[in-house]
């Protein structure tokens, strides 16, 4: 065994040992998290991994993502080359691609050469982008990023250096099959003395950079190279549309107040973030200049985990409310609208919103600490089961002038779950009346719970008041069971999603339909006839409600209904469908002051006004209120009206 091989073995063993130790430390921390079963449906998970990690589906949605696609695949392919490189270092005479038959060896040499130059170009482009045209949502001048880009570039340069020297020395028979290395070699004096030595030097540079890269990985944001593929494997099988239940037993902890109370997946998520910033770019709070940046929340979780790692029992850095990196400020936790835009764009399926709600739960349930305006909301919800604290008897007032049947199993097919806003908010009562008219025209058998209807608890759950939500959900489910309710129509997407997705955790199998879907179906089936000359609403722009669109995938139904009712397809705002921008009222934000930055609803109204619409069509009572207010703010409410989809349809019904 030559001295070089011995030297290499020592270097390799040390580097691998250090890497293994680093991984043991880092991944050991993840195991401190709470359990979460992410090992079911292996086949489906495997497919997700192929599709989203290897397919880079979400990465390439941004144009520059193509650069990452190239780098990713170059990296994957060069992994083969680099494995061979390391093994060859251990056993130069027995392990080498050059020992393969010509055809195989030349093919591999060609592929590795091309991949290396593609990787080098991608790295150079990435560096140029960071200097000249960085997008606002990434931390462009990140030292970490340049270290990694530098290491990758160095690796490629050393690779070409090594191959070129060998080609020039006539020591590599695959020379002509490596166009780039061959071109570099053409600049070198062929057959000159010292080329062999130079090749060995490049070999060692390559080896050292490769091992340095490996050892640096666990300590950088580029740890995602190891974690993001498994993170796509462990991704939630369904879209994340709810939060897990809590068990209310003495001695339990409620919500997450210290980092280890997250699930292991929550911690693993933080390792998978490479700070690409897509989440912050999509976030309505970030967009309007608030402190909340979903990227930083995930980053702080990671930093907190690492910084507190060595301190057994004693957490020096609080997860919530501390200063600087690694601690999430309380106001940040309250600024989230739970719109889910962050999770929709994350290439590696990090689950931001559940983490934020976890921390809200800790603040509300364990600390009883929250923005003061929520105290009234919580009291109102608990005492009168609606956010305003209006007497339950008022719930039937919207129907004062029409005939509404009480829901009775066997007699009425659908329960029309009117919702707090639909029953109690003056503006949204018009939507409710329109719906009643539509149901009757279509001959639907429906009834309501009248004053017995209770709030679904959506806002409470998103605000982290899980204890009260839990009681309200159980009371509702009990009432539905007692009354024999199976099919429910909702007018509010928040009721819709809560009854449909959240209540399922309690074993309630309800057939819940939102009015947009129902109306679309009624028109399609010919049960709802519309006027042949539709009422003139001018240009109509449609705004996607987050809990209808992103949470439940309902994008087409409302658009089809608008087309049927007005005779033309709605205009689209710049950010629409799964990229839609929140009105600002989700996640309980409806009941809170918006103290920092500009107003989210005004930002959305400005976006809508760019299309110069005459009508903004919404399908959610919160969106209705937010648009109404935003239009007043922009002094545009005399030119542009806001209508719920149901109102548009009711207007188009023949007399």
């Amino acid at each position, binding site marked *: 065994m030559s001295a070089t091989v011995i030297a290499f073995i020592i270097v390799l063993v040390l580097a691998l040992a250090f890497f293994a130790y680093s991984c043991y430390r880092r991944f050991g921390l993840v195991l401190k998290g709470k359990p979460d079963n992410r090992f079911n449906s292996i086949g489906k998970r495997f497919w997700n991994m192929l599709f989203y990690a290897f397919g880079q589906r979400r990465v390439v949605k941004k144009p520059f993502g193509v650069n990452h696609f190239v780098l990713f695949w170059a990296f994957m392919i060069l992994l083969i080359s680099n494995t061979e490189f390391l093994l060859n270092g251990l056993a130069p005479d027995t392990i080498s691609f050059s020992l393969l038959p010509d055809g195989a060896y030349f093919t591999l040499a060609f592929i590795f050469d091309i991949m290396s130059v593609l990787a080098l170009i991608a790295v150079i482009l990435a560096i140029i982008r960071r200097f000249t045209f960085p997008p606002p949502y990434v931390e462009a001048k990140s030292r970490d990023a340049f270290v990694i880009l530098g290491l990758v570039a160095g690796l490629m340069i050393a690779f070409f250096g090594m191959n070129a020297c060998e080609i020039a020395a006539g020591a590599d028979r695959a020379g002509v099959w490596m166009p780039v290395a061959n071109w570099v070699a053409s600049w070198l004096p062929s057959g000159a003395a010292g080329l062999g030595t130079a090749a060995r030097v490049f070999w060692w540079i390559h080896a050292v950079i490769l091992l340095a890269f490996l050892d640096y990985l666990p300590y950088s944001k580029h740890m995602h190279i190891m974690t993001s593929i498994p993170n796509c494997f462990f991704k939630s099988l369904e879209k994340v549309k709810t939060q897990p239940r809590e068990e209310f037993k*003495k001695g339990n902890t409620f919500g997450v107040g210290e980092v280890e109370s997250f699930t292991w997946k929550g911690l693993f998520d933080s390792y998978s973030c490479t700070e690409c910033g897509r989440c912050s770019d999509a976030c309505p709070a970030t967009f309007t200049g608030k402190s909340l940046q979903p990227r930083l929340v995930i980053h702080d979780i990671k930093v907190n985990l690492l910084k507190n790692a060595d301190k057994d029992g004693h957490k020096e850095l609080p997860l919530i409310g501390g200063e600087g990196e690694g601690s999430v400020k309380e106001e940040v936790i309250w600024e989230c609208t739970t719109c889910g835009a962050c999770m929709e764009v994350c290439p590696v399926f990090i689950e931001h919103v559940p983490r934020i709600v976890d921390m809200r739960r800790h603040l509300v349930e364990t600390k009883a600490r929250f923005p003061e305006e929520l105290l009234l909301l919580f009291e109102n919800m608990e005492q*009168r089961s609606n956010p305003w604290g209006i*007497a339950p008897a008022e719930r039937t007032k919207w129907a004062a002038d029409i005939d509404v049947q009480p829901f009775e199993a066997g007699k009425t097919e659908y329960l029309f779950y009117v919702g707090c806003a639909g029953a109690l908010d003056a503006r949204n009562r018009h939507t409710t009346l329109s719906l009643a008219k539509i149901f009757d025209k279509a001959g639907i058998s429906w009834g309501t719970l009248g004053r017995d209807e209770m709030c679904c608890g959506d806002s409470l759950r998103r605000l982290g008041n899980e*204890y009260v939500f839990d009681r309200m959900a159980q009371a509702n489910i009990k009432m539905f069971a007692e009354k024999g309710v199976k099919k429910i129509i909702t007018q509010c997407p928040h009721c819709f999603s809560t009854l449909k997705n959240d209540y399922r955790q309690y074993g309630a199998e309800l057939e819940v339909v939102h009015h947009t879907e129902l109306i679309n179906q009624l028109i399609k089936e010919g049960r709802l006839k519309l006027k042949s000359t539709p009422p003139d609403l001018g240009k109509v722009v449609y705004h996607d409600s987050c809990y209808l669109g992103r949470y439940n995938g309902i994008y087409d139904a409302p658009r089809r209904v608008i087309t049927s009712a007005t005779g033309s397809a709605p205009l689209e705002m710049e950010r629409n469908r799964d990229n839609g921008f929140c009105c600002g009222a989700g996640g309980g934000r409806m009941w809170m002051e918006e103290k920092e930055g500009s107003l989210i609803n005004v930002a959305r109204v400005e976006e809508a006004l760019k299309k110069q619409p005459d009508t903004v069509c919404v399908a959610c009572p919160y969106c209705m209120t937010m648009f109404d207010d935003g239009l007043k703010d922009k002094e545009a409410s005399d030119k542009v009206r806001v209508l719920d989809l149901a109102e548009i349809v009711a207007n188009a019904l023949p007399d």
Partner: protein
Amino acid sequence: MLIVACVKQVPDTTQVKVDPETGTLIREGVPFIMNPYDTHALEESLRLKDKYGFRVAVISMGPPSAEVTLRKTLALGADEAILLSDRVFGGADTLATSMVLTGAIKKLAEKEELAIVMCGRQTIDGDTAQVGPGIATRLGCSQLTLVDRVEEVDLKSKTLKVRRKLEGRHEVVSAPLPAMIAVLREINTPRYPSVPMRLEAEDSSIILWDNKVMQMDEATIGLKGSATQVRKIFSPERAKGEILGGEIDKPEDSARLLITRMVEKDLLSL
């Protein structure tokens, strides 16, 4: 030292209607809540507990169902909750009520030195504001009503200083302990119960004192001990409201119309 907070479970009066036929309150289906003024009395007691280390006992006279409200006080941080419930306590007016409450407070004071009796200014169902002062009179202790701030409690000299909110002025007064304080809603913002405290309260037992325990003279309590009797309850007739200026566009014109009307009705003097 002990603070006794007096609370009452009341029907949510915003949801109570008067039956025009019988002249009685329609209480069916109306939820019960803790009297809102009392939530502030409890909060102030808990704040003094946090600051000076008092023990807080909560008492409430009412039917067995008032246990729900007492449990809530435990979730908020009260140390002990006592329900004063017996058929013979029923039908009480403010006089008879204050007799029973005073009896309970005296009983508590036998075991532990009494510092403060904390009451809400009034209840939202009776609206008399008499029970607090009634207790003070029967206990023979300092009586501090309309309190919107407890300035300080001096445990050495056993005195306290409070601010009273009067018409157009404040009055800061000192009084020896024990004292009865009746608080205004402005005094504080009540806290919200944490889940661990709620779960703890769910399992705690509420102490029940009936008249076997209390040994009150039946002639002084309940319906028999009441000096007042309700003859009739009715909703006063109110003139119907009117929406002004629906057809007016300019805010200035709306304002002018409003001012004219207010002057006409002598609500505004020029």
